[in-house]
């Protein structure tokens, strides 16, 4: 599960959300999701408000709902798990259309579904409105270790190259009449994985040599052009978590 990251999420645009610096959006999203996670699960209305907030962001960013819905399929395993909860959880049972379900299990299922969905939609909106390079610069601005950001940027840069290589290997296998059937096909697939590793590693060595010949000394490249985020950007990015926090505080208060 979790496989099939075939579609890039970025949606080019010029909306106010697109123009916010990535580091502001990252902090805003993490703050928002933390507030959502900390909200008591029985405050149903609060989750409706959160969904409304995300909807507002989507409208401002001009991200269509269909786009979000299509990308939200990564959540399917979570949904399956949540649907199982009412059957396996303990506690008093209640009848729902003739089936005895655990009351606390139903609540937990709702809790997991609501919070995970809000998190996924928030992440999709971030990825849709931010270019991958900007996200990496934003991470660097947020004091993530330079080495880690470098590794991530190499990964993102070569991801499609490696994925395409794997795709070509699949075509080559199929051209030789290979159709995977059960565990008997595993040795062939594993040999492909091994070959892919050797090719990736050797490509890494070539990339490293090419970089050395251009004067690479092991340090992170200087961050170009990106200036510090303006205070106004931070203020507008803070709007989402701050409003969410007010909703959450009200939810705790009225519980």
């Amino acid at each position, binding site marked *: 599960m979790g496989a099939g990251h075939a579609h890039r999420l970025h949606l080019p645009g010029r909306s106010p959300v697109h123009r916010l610096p990535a580091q502001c959006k990252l902090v805003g999203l993490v703050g928002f999701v*933390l507030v959502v996670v900390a909200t008591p699960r029985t405050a149903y209305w609060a989750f409706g408000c959160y969904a409304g907030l995300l909807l507002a962001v989507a409208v401002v960013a001009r991200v269509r709902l269909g786009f979000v819905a299509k990308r939200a399929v*990564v959540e399917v395993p979570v949904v399956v798990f949540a649907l199982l909860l009412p059957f396996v959880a303990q506690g008093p049972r209640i009848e729902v259309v003739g089936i005895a379900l655990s009351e606390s299990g139903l609540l937990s299922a709702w809790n997991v579904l609501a919070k995970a969905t809000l998190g996924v939609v928030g992440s999709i909106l971030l*990825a849709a409105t931010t270019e991958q390079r900007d996200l990496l610069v934003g991470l660097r601005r947020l004091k993530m270790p330079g080495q880690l950001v470098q590794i991530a940027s190499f990964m993102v840069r*070569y991801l499609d190259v490696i994925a395409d290589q794997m795709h070509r290997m699949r075509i080559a296998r199929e051209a030789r009449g290979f159709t995977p059937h059960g565990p008997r096909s*595993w040795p062939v697939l594993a040999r492909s*994985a*091994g070959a892919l590793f050797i090719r990736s*590693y050797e490509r890494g*060595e070539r*990339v490293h040599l090419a970089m050395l010949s251009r004067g690479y000394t092991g340090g992170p490249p200087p961050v170009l052009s990106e200036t510090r985020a303006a205070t106004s950007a931070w203020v507008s990015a803070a709007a989402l978590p701050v409003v969410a926090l007010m909703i959450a505080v009200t939810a705790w208060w009225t519980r």
Partner: protein
Amino acid sequence: MHVPDGFLDAPTSVATGVAATAVVGLALRGARRELDDRTAPLTGLVAAFVFAVQMLNFPVGAGTSGHLLGGALAAVLLGPWTAILCMTVVLLVQALFFADGGITALGTNVTLMGIVTVVVGWAVFRLVLRFLPKRPSSAVPAAFAAALLSVPASALSFVALYVVGGTADIPLAPLTVAMLGWHVLIGLGEAVITALTVGSVIAVRPDLVHGARPLLAARDLTIRQSPVASKEAAS
């Protein structure tokens, strides 16, 4: 499966985030010993490999298929520190660019899938190697054991986190049994695939398998003469 937002409560998510940050900081220093200034390009490329190989589907039968998690495989191929960095970056990119795995659960996911699988995988790998003859092919059964145990270990750590900060009211004993039972099966598939993959790399480029390097060093260069060649030389 990646842990989503809201599955564990906020304090647990923050605590695992702090723990993961500390270990990744250590790994950044350790990886420099394993790869020096090649760290960034090589780890990045191998992270792209791990990401790609997670998309490679292995048919199980009856229309279902599974895929590799890759923690133990990365540990055997790259050494523990670089492997932790690889898995961390893969999970980071999946959370930020593909919305898979909650952004507040990133620390939890890195701990469970990046750190526990690699550390357990590497420890088991080294332990098993001690009892095997010192030749490169011994890395294959050792990798099998490493992958086999790394997956249930990760599942058990999840159960432990769940006891501390779970949000659903599931009885502990059945949860443990279900998670262990299911993940021993997944671990078996992971083990077979990991061992086959390590075997195929060892057959071609044994020097690239980090875990097999001490075994390579132990091998003496021997000069053998084939009977054919010596006969020709004699005549």
